[in-house]
């Protein structure tokens, strides 16, 4: 595009630098290149979350008296409100799913090796933030299921040693789940978490741009590689095919399986039978459920929470624990551990939905 306006913009915005960056960015091509699409997919779904979230904000009212009614209003009275809410809910789940695929593929391809340690750390923080988004957003419609799932979730937080009781009161805004909890979760969901996520996402994308895509050790060892693909337009157009497919999946899910609202939260009725958390917390929930009540004289739940916390810590620090080149016995050990983690998480998540009991 040329012309006086274009020239003016190029001059003011430094578009030539961006053009240079785009021309320079390349994506390695090998048999695992498919996994490179998942970061972009997560980012796309995050964008959907931001757009639909802003639209929902136009009508949502964050109080225990009005939240449920406002979501019902969105779903029944607002034009395409049902679609926006359903897409927001489904997209949240797809985004966390995509983020997990992205994280596990990065782990197994050892993309966290030098110099990408901080990229890994920022990605892990982003995954944690996504889970926090999911947890805080789940309560906002103020329905029965959300109310009791949040109660169970915060109860577990309360069992964390030392900081647990403080965290419980901090999250709930008191001893119980009330309107104060809803207001607090709303604040987390639409202000605090987006602010932090935007900053960390900026760092993550900057680091991806700075270090480029990582090539797995196995592929590096093969010597000659096929020529890389230009990011713009070749890889970006392929990304867009994936994004459009995700959009189609969201349209299908929203129309065929609209996200239900359920009954309004009532603290005075018994918890609904078979209450379970969102699927992405399922494996942790199932782990805690299957532990015996006491292990070596300590509470089973406490041991479970400490165990999950330690596992998360180890997982976070894997760039510093694995072989720097990702090779040798140490490299194979960590790859094996990754596979075990995937099998464990998949199995325990499925057990939640099969009603698995100790």
């Amino acid at each position, binding site marked *: 595009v040329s012309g006086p306006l274009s020239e003016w913009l190029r001059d003011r915005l430094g578009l030539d630098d961006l053009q240079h960056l785009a021309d320079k960015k390349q994506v390695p091509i090998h048999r695992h290149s498919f996994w490179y699409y998942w970061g972009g997919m997560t980012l796309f779904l995050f964008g959907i979350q931001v757009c639909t979230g802003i639209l929902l904000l136009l009508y949502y009212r964050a109080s225990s008296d009005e939240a449920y009614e406002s979501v019902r209003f969105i779903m029944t009275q607002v034009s395409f409100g049902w679609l926006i809410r359903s897409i927001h809910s489904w997209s949240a789940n797809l985004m966390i799913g995509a983020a997990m695929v992205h994280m596990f593929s990065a782990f197994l391809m050892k993309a966290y090796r030098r110099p990408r340690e901080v990229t890994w750390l920022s990605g892990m923080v982003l995954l944690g933030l996504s889970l926090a988004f999911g947890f805080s957003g789940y309560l906002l419609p103020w329905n029965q299921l959300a109310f009791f799932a949040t109660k169970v979730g915060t109860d577990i937080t309360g069992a964390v040693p030392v900081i647990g009781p403080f965290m419980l009161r901090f999250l709930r805004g008191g001893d119980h789940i009330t309107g104060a909890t809803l207001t607090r979760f709303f604040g987390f969901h639409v202000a605090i978490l987006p602010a932090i996520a935007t900053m960390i996402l900026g760092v993550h994308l900057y680091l991806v741009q700075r270090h480029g895509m990582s090539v797995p050790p196995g592929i590096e060892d093969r010597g000659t590689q096929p020529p890389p693909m230009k990011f713009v337009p*070749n890889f970006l157009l392929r990304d867009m095919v994936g994004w459009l497919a995700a959009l189609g999946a969201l349209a299908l899910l929203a129309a065929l399986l609209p996200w239900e609202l359920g009954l309004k939260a009532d603290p005075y009725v018994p918890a609904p039978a078979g209450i379970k958390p969102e699927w992405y917390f399922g494996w942790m929930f199932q782990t805690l459920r299957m532990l015996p009540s006491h292990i070596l004289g300590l509470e089973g739940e406490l041991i479970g929470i400490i165990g999950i916390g330690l596992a998360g810590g180890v997982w976070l620090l894997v760039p510093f624990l694995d072989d720097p080149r990702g090779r040798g016995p140490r490299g194979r050990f960590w790859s094996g551990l990754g596979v075990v983690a995937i099998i464990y998480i998949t199995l325990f998540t499925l057990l939640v939905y099969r009603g698995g009991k100790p």
Partner: protein
Amino acid sequence: MRAPRLIASTVALLLALSGIALAAPADSLSGKAPPAKNTCLDCHRRAEEARISGPTVHWAQDIHAVRGLGCVACHGGDPTDSDLSAMDPDKGFRGKPERDQIAELCAKCHADAAYMKRFNPRPYVFSMAEFRTSVHCKKISEGDKKVATCTNCHGVHGILPPKDPSSPVFHRNVPLTCSKCHNAEYMKGRKVPTNQFALYRKSVHGIALLDHDDASAPACNDCHGNHGAVPPNTRDITLVCANCHGREGELFMASKVKAAFDKMGMRGCVTCHSNHDVERPTDAMLSTGPGGVCSGCHAPGSAGERGARTIIDGFTHLKASIANADSLLKLAEYRGMETTEAREAWRASQDRLVAVRAAIHSFDTQTVGAVVAEGDEFATKARGAGLSALRDWRNRRIGMGLSLLVILATIGLLIVKIRGIESR
């Protein structure tokens, strides 16, 4: 040594039973303070003859014992004296009261509000005057020995408070307690119906109380009274039923049908619903045909039959509207549509249906018609919301199909574009 003492005790007791004085005031019956000793129990417990030791078996659980009252409260005597002289009439010993004196004896304390308040700030105060209105009391006064007095229902020497589930006068136990006398065998030779319990047992009230432990269901005493138990000969049986079925009673009392019933000597509610065997009212009762209660009085073609038909038609129409709205909403819910608001309207229509069932007791087409119209308005709203939800569901599918076509076409164009770029 033991046998002569036992004989002496028995003789003394029998002698004492023959002389009763009931002039003692309530305070002297109860004793101002619980007796420190109760020698009556010491001897009676040891007695081999069940007639003498019997009163001690359940005495510890008796509410009077629990409240600190001793044998002396009813029987008099000296509980501190461990010899037979304790039962000396000079010491106020009254022995076993005669049947026709039991109610008076109990009333000494139970009819004294000030005294009863010592045990309960909101006591039940027995009314001897009320008891005298009962058939039981009248028969006792006539010397009938087979008629119930206080002890026949409440028990004796092991009396439990009425709130105790083991008490024979606990709400749930009342029908069985009454049936102990009101049965064919016991009532032999009397002109008293004896099938009440059998009828009540299978009635809606009996099933609710005895099978479902529904404490709100009436037992015998809720209609007949307890201490003033009589056949419910209030001015109108409707007043009895209206104690619980208030709205229906109110409407019926003001209805033209009530006036007609009175003229014809028909017994209000019982005419259509029966009494002891009252069944769960069904909508099938609302019919001018066989099985309905209207045809019993209203001949086909009469003004009454036409009025009944108008009411029945309105009711049937509302039921159909509600069922129709429900099936539409169920389908919409099955298809994942949000119907909370529509369900609220539907529930309001259901409430109006219940109101119509009550309003029918006015036997007034306008009164019933107004509630039917109100219910119909809600049912129509719910039906409209159901249809709208199903329309939305279809539109969403069409929208989904179209957007998928657009997405697929764009994907196709992108693939062509990629191939175009990469073939260069």
